[in-house]
């Protein structure tokens, strides 16, 4: 033995192995442990799924009561046939985890305010924000409701057990690749995670508010200007429930407090706000046409929810068949059941209600310890919820959040001295009253809809939906169609909750909920269709105040099209869902064309102007006019409002596009047109021409970069949830825009397109921008994307058990006890 070389070589070997087994800092983040990560038998190579991978398998789980057969078709859609209903949910949980575990874990960590556990200190603001909004509190309340319902509890228990059955079978090498990249291990699922996931959807769909931004705007502008910038009425509105509908007699009468003008509406107190919020444009389209308008004589139901586009997709497609029901559609990895889809009798879909159900109250504490707060003329005792936030690589962060009793509701004081979240000034305290923190049982809706046979079943199902409120569309083989602007909505007096409200007594609290029989709905209307696209659900005759923040154009166009369509086929409906006609542009273009001072344009500007003038108002692939319009509009709005907003607080509400267009169509001498910094008075023509000249410079640059074509300018992308570019699909040639029915924006759009024709043998079509597998190493991870970009659909197959030898069945998974 040569002792010195031996020791030296052994030391070097050991050192190398330790280095390769350690996650080391690299360029600001952490690199995987390369030995482990590159080992072909342990690391990421194990996630490189063979193109001919055989998914067929036999599995045994003692938790099952009977047999479950899963037939996977050529698109990797599972058709689950279970002898017992709860076994089907077990298998659904297993399959969700098998194909989407990483995403389920990430989303529930995000919902629970636990991101810091994975990514370290940079997740702390998010975590505190979510916990202080009451996400975990709300999930706990929702879970208690679920636990009161034995049917749903059994469903959730089975689903959770299925997820855990998969997790327990994982080995180091079979972990999803994202875990290997970030050095994290999956934890067991529990029912609270399902609740958290659903609250995450509530956050996404029903947490949007502009209360701070509007309060700042109200403080900054004169009352007259404020009304002009933020009108409560839209001229272009074609509501979901058509104008002229007679509503139920009002039973709740919300009353504005005394002195509301001086204390609330005319108060000039400023707040600061700069935090991130859920997307305002989280919208969607849905409609159903009755048999008298269709070629087949049977109703057709269509739905395309517009959400943030990600890989893996929010949706997982499947069929669940068990004694008593048979449903097909898309599910949420994270929750049991089919969320949007159809069964043997009917079809159902949703668009977001989008009303403001998140309001703030300014709270007065006795001192910085926050032990007592002033309410109804006395000091009341605060409750505290102490959150321990674990941070990777750092000591825990303890956040104690005050809860105050406002009326009957304990509300978290979200913003205070210890947490401004970029929103509060720090010397003030704001409690948040959020509808999602109330008890409700959202899972019940989906369970009941999956089983629904007729209109009565549908009505009974959707009235359980409290938050997030949705426009629930329905069609049935019996010929019925319906839509319900469902939710449990606070009954507000006009203007209530638009701004931060005083929280020192009961006078500004919500005074009750709109009774369920006053929730507007339509059932088999004379016009032969129902539709919604997030526009304001009702006109001004509806007795309750429902806010001002609704996009009008998609809804108006859908109704215009459906009104004139007859003898409709499913293919016509697909064409409508992917229609790129821009109604906002149709409304705004005359303003530009009538007022452009063409003589002032140089040759280059003239070239762009000709392209604009000849534009067919469609956001199609290759359209240059669409890009020019978009750039021009944004410069025009800046030119009109920029001078007035120049000295405004940093975060302040901007008027909606529809507000400016409608104001100018009514009044070409709109007072904001004048630039307050110049001695002369600018006209509409001056502003239009100035904006166009400014736009031309930008357009020239775009043209040089080869980005003048609409799809290149917009550059639609589907980002991986961990924001890893190579796992994302970038620069897709997708048409459509914010205001078109095909509302595909750069990172947001139709997350599932579905057309269901309820003929005797259901004819169904659908597509979502993703793939069934969440594994970036699987060819099924994004194989639907190109089909979706092209506006094409897949035929959806409601399989029967007798078709098990059909050539579409590629693999079979047997589950037994």
């Amino acid at each position, binding site marked *: 033995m040569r002792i010195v070389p*031996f020791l030296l070589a052994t030391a070097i070997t050991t050192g190398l192995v330790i280095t390769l087994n350690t996650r080391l800092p690299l360029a600001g983040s952490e690199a995987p442990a390369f030995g482990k990560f590159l080992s072909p038998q342990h690391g*990421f190579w*194990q996630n490189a799924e063979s193109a001919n991978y055989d998914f067929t398998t036999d599995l045994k789980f003692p938790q099952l009561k009977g047999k479950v057969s899963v037939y996977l078709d050529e698109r990797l859609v599972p058709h689950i046939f279970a002898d017992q209903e709860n076994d089907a949910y077990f298998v659904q949980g297993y399959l969700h985890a098998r194909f989407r575990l990483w995403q389920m874990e990430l989303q529930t960590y995000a919902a629970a305010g636990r991101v810091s556990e994975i990514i370290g200190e940079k997740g702390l603001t998010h975590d505190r924000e979510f916990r202080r909004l009451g996400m975990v509190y709300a999930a706990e309340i929702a879970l208690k409701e679920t636990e009161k319902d034995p049917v749903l509890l059994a469903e959730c228990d089975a689903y959770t057990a299925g997820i855990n059955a998969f997790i327990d079978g994982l080995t180091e090498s079979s972990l999803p690749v994202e875990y290997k990249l970030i050095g994290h291990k999956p934890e067991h699922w529990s029912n609270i995670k399902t609740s958290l996931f659903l609250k995450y959807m509530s956050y996404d769909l029903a947490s949007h508010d502009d209360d701070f931004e509007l309060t700042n705007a109200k403080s900054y502008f004169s009352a007259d200007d404020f009304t002009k910038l933020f009108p409560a009425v839209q001229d272009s509105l074609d509501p979901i429930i058509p104008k002229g509908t007679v509503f139920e007699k009002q039973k709740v009468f919300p009353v504005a407090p005394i002195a509301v003008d001086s204390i609330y509406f005319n108060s000039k107190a400023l707040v600061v706000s700069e935090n991130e919020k859920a997307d305002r444009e989280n919208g969607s389209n849905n409609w159903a046409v009755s048999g008298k308008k269709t070629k087949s004589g049977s109703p057709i139901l269509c739905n395309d929810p517009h959400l943030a586009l990600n890989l893996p997709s929010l949706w997982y497609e499947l069929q669940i068949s068990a004694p008593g029901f048979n449903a097909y559609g898309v599910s949420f990895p994270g929750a049991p059941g089919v969320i949007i889809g159809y069964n043997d009798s009917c079809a159902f879909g949703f668009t977001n209600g989008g009303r403001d159900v998140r309001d703030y109250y300014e709270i007065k504490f006795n001192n910085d310890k926050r032990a007592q707060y002033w309410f109804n003329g006395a000091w009341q005792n605060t409750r505290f919820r102490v959150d321990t936030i674990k941070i990777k690589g750092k000591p825990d962060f303890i956040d104690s959040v005050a809860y105050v009793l406002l009326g009957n509701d304990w509300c978290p004081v979200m913003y205070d001295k210890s947490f401004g979240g970029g929103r509060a000034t720090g010397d003030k305290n704001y409690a948040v009253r959020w509808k999602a923190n109330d008890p409700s049982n959202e899972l019940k809706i989906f369970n009941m809809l999956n089983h629904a046979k007729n209109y009565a079943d549908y009505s009974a199902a959707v009235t359980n939906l409290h938050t997030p409120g949705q426009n629930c569309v329905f069609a049935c083989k019996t010929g019925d169609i319906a839509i319900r602007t469902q939710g449990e909505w606070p009954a507000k007096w006009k203007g209530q909750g638009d701004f931060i409200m005083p929280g020192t007594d009961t006078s500004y609290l919500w005074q009750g909920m709109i009774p369920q029989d006053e929730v507007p709905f339509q059932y088999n209307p004379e016009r032969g269709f129902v539709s919604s696209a997030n526009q304001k659900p009702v006109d001004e005759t509806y007795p309750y105040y429902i806010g001002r923040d609704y996009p009008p154009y998609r809804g108006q166009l859908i109704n215009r099209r459906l009104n004139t369509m007859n003898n409709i086929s499913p293919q016509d409906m697909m064409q409508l869902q992917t229609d790129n006609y821009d109604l906002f542009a149709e409304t705004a273009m005359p303003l530009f064309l009538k007022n452009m001072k063409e003589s002032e344009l140089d040759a280059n500007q003239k070239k762009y102007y000709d392209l604009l003038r000849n534009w067919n108002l469609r956001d199609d692939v290759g359209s240059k006019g669409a890009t020019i319009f978009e750039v021009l509009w944004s410069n025009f709005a800046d030119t009109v409002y920029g001078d007035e907003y120049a000295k405004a607080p940093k975060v302040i509400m901007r008027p909606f596009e529809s507000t400016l267009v409608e104001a100018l169509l009514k009044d070409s001498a709109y007072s904001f047109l004048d630039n307050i910094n110049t001695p002369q008075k600018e006209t509409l023509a001056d502003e239009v021409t100035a904006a166009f000249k400014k736009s031309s410079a930008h357009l020239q640059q775009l043209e040089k970069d080869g980005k003048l074509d609409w799809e290149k300018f917009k550059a639609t992308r589907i980002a991986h949830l961990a924001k890893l570019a190579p796992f994302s699909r970038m620069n897709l040639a997708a048409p459509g825009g914010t205001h078109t029915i095909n509302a595909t924006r750069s990172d947001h759009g139709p997350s599932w397109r579905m057309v269901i024709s309820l003929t005797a043998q259901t004819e169904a079509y659908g597509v979502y921008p993703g793939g069934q597998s969440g594994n970036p190493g699987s060819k099924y991870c994004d194989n639907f994307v190109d089909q979706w970009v092209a506006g094409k659909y897949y035929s959806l197959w409601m399989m029967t058990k007798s078709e098990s030898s059909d050539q579409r069945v590629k693999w079979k998974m047997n589950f037994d006890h």
Partner: protein
Amino acid sequence: MKFFISIILTALICFASALYLPWWSIAPMSFLVAVLIPQRPGKAFLSGFLALFLLWGGLSFWISYQNEHLLAHKMSMLILKMDNPYLLILVTALIGGLVAALAALSGSYLRKTK
């Protein structure tokens, strides 16, 4: 002859052990083979290197080939900042080879009398 037997034995034992043990079992296994089949340090180093270079390179190539290099394309962009699956396979093979080579070298020094 010893040289080839060492390579094959190291590759086989490392493959088998990695089915049950963590990735770094390739180090003690290569060490063990070098102890059992004594060679000059240079040769031991080379046989350890070649064994794991071939094993890891071969396995990752085979997996990636069956995967139509789908994941390797993405992963090479992520790790190497360039789209080159073969380079990623080469890096994998080199790292496996280096660990085994050093372990085998250590093993050979244990047996070597002079």
